[in-house]
């Protein structure tokens, strides 16, 4: 079973991996986005970002889904911090983040070298029309995570 094999630790020389904070964020690998654009006037902005440096050789993922677990958008961040912005119809959503261990350099495509899910965290967020809500995925050195959501902030009027 592949997931078990991939849990075998790899040599420390393979530190050029992923998950840590690079000097400048690299583009994420988008996986899917199935949400229709939110109608103007009823939409808000959800920003997902990362706090804390992820352990080396971990690939991180973020998803936004509806309360009944329909994924709206999902993206992979194999080589950089989580950063995702999504326009959404006002309402409740769930923000989820998780990571997988990488046997070597985390791949930007495909499954090669990726282990199973190791940690996952999430929180329910409420997007308000005309407002920007920032959900922060806080990651510690062991790779555990938590999603923190402060109150909404109103976007400045153009």
């Amino acid at each position, binding site marked *: *079973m592949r997931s078990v094999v991939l849990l075998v630790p790899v040599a420390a020389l393979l530190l050029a991996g992923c998950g840590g904070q690079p000097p400048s964020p690299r583009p994420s690998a988008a996986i899917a986005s199935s949400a229709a654009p939110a109608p103007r006037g009823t939409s808000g902005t959800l920003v997902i970002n990362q706090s804390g440096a992820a352990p080396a050789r971990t690939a991180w993922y973020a998803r936004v889904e509806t309360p009944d*677990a329909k994924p709206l958008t999902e993206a992979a961040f194999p080589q950089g911090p989580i950063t995702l912005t999504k326009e959404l119809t006002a309402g409740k959503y*769930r923000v989820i983040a998780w990571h997988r261990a990488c046997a070597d350099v985390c791949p930007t495509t495909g499954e090669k070298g*990726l282990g199973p*899910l190791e940690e996952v*965290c999430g929180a*329910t967020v409420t997007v308000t029309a005309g407002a920007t809500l920032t959900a922060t995925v806080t990651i510690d050195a062991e790779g*555990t995570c*938590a999603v923190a959501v402060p109150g909404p902030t109103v976007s400045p009027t153009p």
Partner: protein
Amino acid sequence: MRIRPLAIALAAASAIVGFTATPAQADHSWGSYHWSRSGEARLTIYSSVTSDWAGALSTANADWNASPYLQNTVVAGGTSSTTRRRCVMPAGAIRVCNYAYGNNGWAGLASIDTDSGGTHINQASAKMNDTYEAGRSAAERQGVMCQEVGHDFGLGHQDEDMTNANLGTCMDYTRDWSTNQHPNAHDFNQLAAIYGHSDAAFKAAAPSTTSIRTGNTVTIITWAS
């Protein structure tokens, strides 16, 4: 392998009658995942829980073994912090763990490994998050334990609205676990629908719960209330 053909036949018939008589009770399988077996599933459940969870695991196992399709055994599985934190899935079996996994939003987490691209479960784990559950009522802890172990058999949630009336099953999200600590007849009917077939593909309902596939591993999440 001890098989209970009469009980299984009755359960299958009951499942058919149940689904016909109560169409509002939708299919709540988790994907189409199931253990490959001949007759009833006889799984080993490795207990990697501390003593304060051991009773809940024992009760949950007895509850699920009321299904004629399950006859599982709980054995000691190591309770070191490392074992409980990692909760590595044992080949051909289930490991159940508790640990303070952190303020990550989930109360319980069930993971399964399947054959490549398939639906047969090869190994599984269930985690109880003490960060949320350590101080919760015995009823809630029993319900969460029952639910996570139930996921490892291929069951999803019956309902995910925490505020509606209890369905009388641990596979129902709730804020009042007093009447949701154990499986109900619909869970057993669902197990009959899953395991009452000849191991061919089982057609499942669309998932309505957070599920993450990573390679051959699939994880279902029970969010904390």
